[in-house]
């Protein structure tokens, strides 16, 4: 393998580049990313960066020296528009044609949007999104309606509140986060909103956004209108795969690949939020930092081997920070769950999820030490040998 091109220069793409070099690839390395920025970290965008506690330089995933060390050719601010799986050829938005022996797809996901360009309506996925939202809420005192009480919505609500905004969260499901955490613990986490002076409206959908050029309110399905100066849609993401139409790869809610992140073409792998890999008999796509980081090492190993020699273990770990509380989760939620340390009332606890008596998942709030021990008990190595 002489040339490898990585498409997407965020966490998964950068980690893949680092892993290629660490695993001894000394050929030509090309990175293509449509954002103009150097690789930056997303989790702080809804937390300390939005709050104004840290700046752009603190978001960098690697400093200039670390990037130079990769010895790569960078095409930033350019989008890949076409891939041919049969010969690995790529076309970029400026017409550049690239030929490579191996391709790493790391194009992540984009936020679902609402409101057709109405001013004051935001999503939060990119640095530019965060800068634009921060400009509107930095001084507090504005009415913010957050649509969607998932992790991004909840973190955004928490930060807006900390900045002194009047915040309402609207969630269509009866209990927020119940798919990720189960109903009991979803409700426990969602309880943080009202405790911190944020209104939470659940079990009702949004009918429309009101306003001519700028948003003035959110109309709910029952006709109620919530006045709003700023609306943030936290309604999920879709994987960035449009550019792969006609590539010959199988696309179905992500780039479909095997347990080792390898597509049907052994010279093309997919990593991070865009990858829908095989895991325990099904195909899953994760949207979390640690899985994106860990998949890179596995995918690169398989790419260099020309075959799936290692599997991604998918330990299902993620964290969130809301209202000064640290939430950590690993594994999988199950119907049966119990608090094993602390208590929900104190907002400091560790809970385990059980199926047939076996622990399938761990959730903790403000309890990093016991959480880490339980998570380790659950975990297998990040890379498991194939076969």
């Amino acid at each position, binding site marked *: 393998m002489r040339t490898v091109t990585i498409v997407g220069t965020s*966490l998964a793409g950068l*980690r893949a580049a680092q892993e290629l070099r660490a695993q001894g690839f000394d050929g030509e390395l090309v990175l293509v990313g449509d954002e103009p920025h150097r690789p930056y*970290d997303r989790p702080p965008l809804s937390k300390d960066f939005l709050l104004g506690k840290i700046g752009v330089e603190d978001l*960098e*995933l*690697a*400093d200039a020296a*670390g990037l130079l060390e990769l010895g790569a050719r960078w095409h930033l601010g350019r989008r890949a528009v076409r891939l041919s799986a049969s010969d690995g050829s790529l076309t970029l938005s400026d017409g550049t044609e690239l030929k490579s022996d191996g391709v790493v797809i790391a194009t992540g996901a984009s936020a679902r949007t609402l409101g057709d360009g109405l001013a004051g309506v935001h999503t939060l996925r990119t640095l530019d999104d965060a800068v634009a939202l921060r400009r509107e809420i930095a001084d507090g005192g504005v009415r913010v309606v957050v649509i969607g009480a998932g992790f991004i919505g909840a973190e955004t609500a928490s930060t807006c509140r900390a900045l002194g905004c009047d915040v309402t969260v609207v969630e269509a499901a009866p209990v927020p986060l119940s798919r990720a955490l189960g109903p009991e613990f979803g409700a426990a986490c969602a309880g943080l909103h009202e405790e911190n002076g944020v209104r939470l409206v659940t079990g009702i959908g949004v009918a429309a956004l009101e306003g001519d050029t700028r948003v003035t309110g959110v109309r709910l399905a029952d006709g109620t209108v919530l006045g709003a100066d700023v609306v943030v849609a936290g309604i999920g993401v879709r994987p960035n795969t449009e550019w792969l139409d006609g590539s010959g790869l199988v696309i179905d809610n992500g780039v479909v690949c095997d347990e080792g992140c390898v597509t049907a073409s052994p010279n093309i792998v997919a990593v991070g939020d865009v990858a829908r890999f095989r895991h325990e008999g099904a195909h899953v796509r994760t949207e979390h*930092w*640690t899985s994106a*980081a860990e998949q890179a090492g596995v995918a690169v190993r398989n790419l260099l081997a020309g075959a799936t020699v290692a599997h991604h273990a998918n330990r299902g*770990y993620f*964290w969130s920070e809301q209202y000064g509380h*640290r939430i*950590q989760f690993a594994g999988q939620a199950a119907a049966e769950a119990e608090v094993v340390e602390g208590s929900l009332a104190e907002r400091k606890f560790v809970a385990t999820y059980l199926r047939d008596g076996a622990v399938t998942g761990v959730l903790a709030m403000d309890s*990093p*030490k016991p*959480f*880490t*021990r339980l998570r*380790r008990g659950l975990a297998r190595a990040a890379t498991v040998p194939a076969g």
Partner: protein
Amino acid sequence: MIRACDVDDLPDGEAVRLLAHVPISVFHTEGQYFAIDDTCSHQDASLADGWVEGCFVECPLHAASFDLRTGQPTCLPAKRPVRTYPVVVSDGAIYVDTAVAQEAIA
């Protein structure tokens, strides 16, 4: 020199946190003692709460791993090292020389 604890109070695989000019944690692993800055160089987490394996400690928050011998991070999200300090065992007690911080060499 700051006294951390008795040797008997720090079994292999455990860590103890002490308050010097900054929080410092002392680890006992593989028959040796190591002292490093307790606060992760990424964000505000106590490395004494982390997971020790061999000569490495994994941060309890976002799983960056640090080499206890050098303070260097081995993976993202940490990019900066933590400082290391000399440890002295004397008369059944563990001491940390907090005045001699070693800035890890990148």
